[in-house]
């Protein structure tokens, strides 16, 4: 159970990181995130099975394409309504619905839509069998967090990210173009979503409904952790992940979705800015 909890937590963290990146930097709540996740899955699937591109090449291609797609969404849609919260939410939610319901209409449902695992097989850890794929997820999350940390602290674009996250107008005066950087952050957030999809989806089949599930998981982890705070996201995903695993073991697997809602409610009652949220966010939220 300890191991499964760990895996569940890292999966949640992986799902939430992309959403959190976009929101923390540009302040755009990307409600299309779940749709991006599903699209990435289908895209990789069709690259592999219809165009016969090797697995790793098609994964890389998907991540890049989805990243570009994300920044195009920003350029053509979000940029015009930046700052109008209601419009942003409605527009991204609209995009999400267009994508997901279109996929549902086309009929991507069934067992044949699943991605291959990296390495088949399982190992025994602490008395429970674990797929190697799940171990890969843990490894990737650690790697990803390290890369993200280095990226935001040591590269020019990364520093610009933090700049517009902290104070947009001041960074404008220092020669950072907020719109360009926000488009970058949107693209990177989407690319992270695609990455999460490629890593997580081999565990199951690709379904349209998982788009909504991913969005819900990402949202609840981000709310609990404090939006825009990476380490808050990690802590929150561990709390929710273990709580879900415990619920699934001792109560019933159906109740796991309720856990995140309860976590949100408790956090909002106790500490409305989230676990590691900053003072600025407290003002925004309450």
């Amino acid at each position: 159970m300890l191991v499964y909890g760990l895996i569940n937590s890292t999966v949640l963290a992986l799902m939430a990181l992309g959403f959190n990146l976009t929101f923390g930097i540009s302040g755009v709540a990307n409600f299309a995130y779940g749709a991006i996740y599903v699209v990435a899955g289908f895209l990789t699937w069709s690259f592999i099975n219809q165009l016969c591109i090797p697995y790793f090449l098609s994964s890389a291609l998907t991540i890049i394409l989805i990243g570009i797609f994300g920044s195009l969404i920003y350029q053509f849609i979000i940029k015009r309504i930046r700052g109008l919260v209601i419009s942003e939410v409605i527009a991204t939610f609209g995009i999400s619905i267009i994508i997901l319901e279109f996929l549902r209409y086309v009929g991507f449902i069934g067992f044949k839509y699943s991605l291959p695992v990296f390495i088949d097989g399982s190992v025994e850890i602490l008395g429970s069998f674990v797929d190697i794929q799940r171990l890969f997820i843990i490894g990737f999350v650690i790697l990803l967090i390290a890369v993200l940390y280095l990226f935001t602290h040591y590269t020019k674009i990364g520093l610009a990210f933090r700049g517009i996250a902290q104070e947009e107008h001041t960074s404008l005066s220092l020669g950072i173009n907020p719109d360009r950087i926000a488009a970058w952050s949107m693209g990177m957030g989407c690319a992270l979503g695609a990455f999460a999809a490629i890593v997580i989806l081999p565990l199951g089949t690709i379904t349209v409904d998982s788009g909504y599930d991913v969005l819900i998981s990402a949202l609840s982890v981000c709310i609990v952790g404090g939006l825009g705070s990476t380490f808050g996201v990690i802590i929150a995903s561990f709390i929710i992940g273990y709580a879900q695993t415990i619920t699934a073991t001792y109560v019933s697997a159906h109740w796991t979705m309720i856990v995140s809602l309860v976590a949100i409610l408790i956090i909002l009652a106790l500490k409305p800015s989230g676990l590691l949220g900053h003072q600025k966010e407290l003002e925004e939220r309450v």
Partner: protein
Amino acid sequence: MKGNYRKERIDRCIKARSDDIYAVTSYREMWYLLFPRLIPIVGIALLAYFLPPYWKKVVITTCIFAMLAVSWDFLSSCGMLSLGQALFFGLGSYTAGSLNHYLHLPVYITVPAATVIGGFLSTMILLPVIRLRGIYFAMVTLILPLMLIRLIEATKILGGTEGITGLSPFPNVWFEITVILAAMWVALFGLRRFISSDYGLIFVSIRDNDRATMASGINIYSFKAQALFIGSSICAFCGAFMTHSYQFTGMPVFAMEFSILPIAAAAIGGIGTLAGPLVGASILVPLSEVLREFGTLRIVFYGFILVICVVALPEGIFHYASRKYNEMERWVKVD
């Protein structure tokens, strides 16, 4: 030469007189004010009573979605952005369904009871998060209906995945239409009057600047809870009504369609006018009825409308029409 002319737009003088001071002096001016209100009332009533039975149902559905959209717009003018009208709708629907199924109460008790109980339940559920603003509130309202679907699926309460069928219908279709039309116009004009009253002004001020409202010594959370109750009661009424109209309640009442269509209607019609969403709904619902053969592709179509309206036509139809109605245009010579 056209280049030497410019278009001059002036508000009609009657607008100034009728807007705030109410110095309407002639039948012509009264007609000017009544005309835009009477046309939809009479028009929809005529359509509702004299269309063939299938299209009667469409009119009823239109009214239901119009009320959902009006309630969405009311909540958004109180600063609460809801992405989950399905929550309120579903709670009302389930309340009416279970009152009718388990307690065998007749329709004329279940619908009013479900309106109040559904509104109360929704308010209670959202009370812990009422302090949230903007997207945070939106996120929670988006999550809740999806969670409730899971809850019903998991616990198999209230009919589980099959839902509750065989509920008692309305006595006849005329009664049904009269009730829904009356409810819609009461909701629309009641909310319009309410929001422009001194009491309703507080709700608008919460949206505009909640800090300043708090600083004026007003307990904004109690006002937000009241707004939530009003808004969700309207949706709960729609839910209860729909339940008895289709004699069924079940998991589909929490479906995405009930959340997304009201928002799309409001985005087309014009956010913040209350009448705009009604215009939007009366365009969208019949249109989606025409597009019925496309199945779930309709929802894709709503999504497109949402994005296009929000990005390209942020004003909405109603704002545009009322501006054109209230102003004169003429070409004047540029000196």
